[in-house]
């Protein structure tokens, strides 16, 4: 199917503008983290809100041309990752009142959106369009699941950086600016819990959809295999922590590894296997 964005200049411009907005917001958060700029301090949150609203408006316009169906393509998925990460981060910022981790999350979201915009401009194919409750829930839960994996990975990284700074008496910028270790641990574990929830929904919705369509899917399919491994490890870590006190430092290494692994997998699939699951009737 042809990429509708290439024939729709306003949509294409809006898509490219989104990248600019994400980068601009990421820069504002960065300036606020590394310096004490009043402009960045006051305008980073409105900037993020505006970016998210623009993104939602863009998604509305994009799907309206196809009867609000979600189409599976790498650039759409990356764009969805950007919006879900931003929405999740906005929720965290409002609930925890801590705005010092925004730079790391929004930078990742900006990266995802920039890749999406670049691929949008280059790709002639817009991907397979899906409709139906089961597949919709499957896709959206998978995207939120990946966002949760990204957030858990990023917060784990921040936890380890701060942990090392404190252990080595390096009371530098991260020590000054980041939330305390306990908060970072809570944020990581919340992200893991949400990740587990969304990945569970992804699995169940996928299974349900496969049963309805009668198509079969190989358990060795890379995306499915990765999903099951992460789902299992997340579930295990949630259970293990209260039971045997598996300490957050070791868990952080696992979450970072999973995040890097999934990101690498997505990038590789983007270039070598940009399709949905290999389904056979």
């Amino acid at each position: 199917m042809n990429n509708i964005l290439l024939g729709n200049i306003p949509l294409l411009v809006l898509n490219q503008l989104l990248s600019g907005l994400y980068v601009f917001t990421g820069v504002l958060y960065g300036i606020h983290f590394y310096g004490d700029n009043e402009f960045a301090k006051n305008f980073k949150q409105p900037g993020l809100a505006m970016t998210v609203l623009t993104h939602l408006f863009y998604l509305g316009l994009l799907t309206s041309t196809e009867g609000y169906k979600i189409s599976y393509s790498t650039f759409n998925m990356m764009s969805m990752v950007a919006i879900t990460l931003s929405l999740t981060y906005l929720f965290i910022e409002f609930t925890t009142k801590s705005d010092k981790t925004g730079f790391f999350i929004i930078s990742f979201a900006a990266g995802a959106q920039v890749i999406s915009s670049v691929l949008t401009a280059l790709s002639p194919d817009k991907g397979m369009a899906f409709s139906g409750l089961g597949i919709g829930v499957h896709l959206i839960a998978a995207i939120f699941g990946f966002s949760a994996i990204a957030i858990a990975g990023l917060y784990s990284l921040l936890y380890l950086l701060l942990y090392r700074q404190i252990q080595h008496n390096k009371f530098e910028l991260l020590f000054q600016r980041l939330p305390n270790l306990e908060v970072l641990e809570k944020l990581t574990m919340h992200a893991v819990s949400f990740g587990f929830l969304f990945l569970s929904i992804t699995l169940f919705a996928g299974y349900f959809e496969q049963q309805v369509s009668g198509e079969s899917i190989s358990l060795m399919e890379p995306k499915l295999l990765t999903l099951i491994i992460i789902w299992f490890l997340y579930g295990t870590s949630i259970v293990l922590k209260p039971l045997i006190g598996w300490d957050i430092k070791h868990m952080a290494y696992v979450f970072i590894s999973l995040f890097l692994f999934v990101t690498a997998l997505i990038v590789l699939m983007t270039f070598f296997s940009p399709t949905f699951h290999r389904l056979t009737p």
Partner: protein
Amino acid sequence: MNIISVGVNHKTAPIEIRERISLTETQNKEFISGLISSGIAHEAMVVSTCNRTELYVVPAMEEVTGEYLKEYLIAYKDARNEVRPEHFFGRFYCGTARHLFEVSSAIDSLILGEGQILGQVKNAYRIAAETQAAGILITRLCHTAFSVAKKVKTKTKIMEGAVSVSYAAVELAQKIFSNLSVKKILLIGAGETGELAAKHMFQKNARNIVITNRTQSKAETLAEELGTGKVLPFETYRDHLHEFDIIITAVSTKEYILSEAEMHQSMMKRKLKPVIILDLGLPRNVDPNISKLQNMFLKDIDALKHIIDKNLERRRAELPKVKAIIDEELVAFAQWINTLKVRPTIVDLQSKFIEIKEKELERYRYKVSEEELQRMEHLTDRILKKILHHPIKMLKAPIDTADSIPSRVNLVRNIFDLEEPNQSY
């Protein structure tokens, strides 16, 4: 009109000189009352703290200079043998204002950005006001200084971060735990250092503080003072180590009171939940190998001093912002002082026109009705107000240099034929 400041502080004199010249509250009142009653000063105030004794004076005579005031203070303290004028600094006019602004903002303090000095300056002003030694100039100077200090506190980070070992310990604990009120704290040693750390923890909402000490009565006294009332016998505290999230040690001992094996066992019992040990003892109380344990944060005084150094570095980086605020307020203050010099001319100008108005109205008093006279008076008041508006506005307009004031004042006095003023402000 001038305002002079002289004094000794940590930059100009050693501690023994500062101690010798310092004034108690009673002496402060007596001293400034003496300056006023003897006709030396129109206004006076003394800021006396452990690090400074500074005199702020609006002189009543030309002979009253900085040198005069230094000698006067030395004589008052009968300290000629120890204290010399060279131990003093001296400022006048805007230099005085800048100095008080810097003092109030805590950038002139021994510990940059310390939080006590503003209260001490406020106290000095209270004493001067109660003694009726604070007139229009010192009142305005002090209120501007308070406003500068408030701006500095809210708009800069000059007062942020711990700059004492015990407070750095709390800052570190807050970087690991989010809520000290739910954490269990063990204080080993009820001496001065331990007491200070426990009090800082208490200020940050830590309520579950258990104290142990070789002399149990000292632990009980401190527990009572803190309001926690929790004491652990010194012989048994090792059995409870796993219950505590924060352990503060501040005892005088040559041997380690916490060993690696003990803490390893304790960490296993608490399922590796993080623990902070703050070793405030000298020599150190805790085996340094403990820091190798998983999720164990052991910090001694040297480590905490790293936090203090970093915080002081950050405070120093804020100095340009503080100085910019002071400069801005100083310009406004200087302009206000300049307007004081035109005040007698404004008063004379208004009096002259009111006199003319009253003379002219008097001529009509018996020629018109009472009601008409009131209307005429009302009308002339409005006309006078409009006529005088511009000359007064011109006189009060911001003046950058005091040199231009006499020409401006003389112009108005000559045009309106005003007599020579007999008061300075």
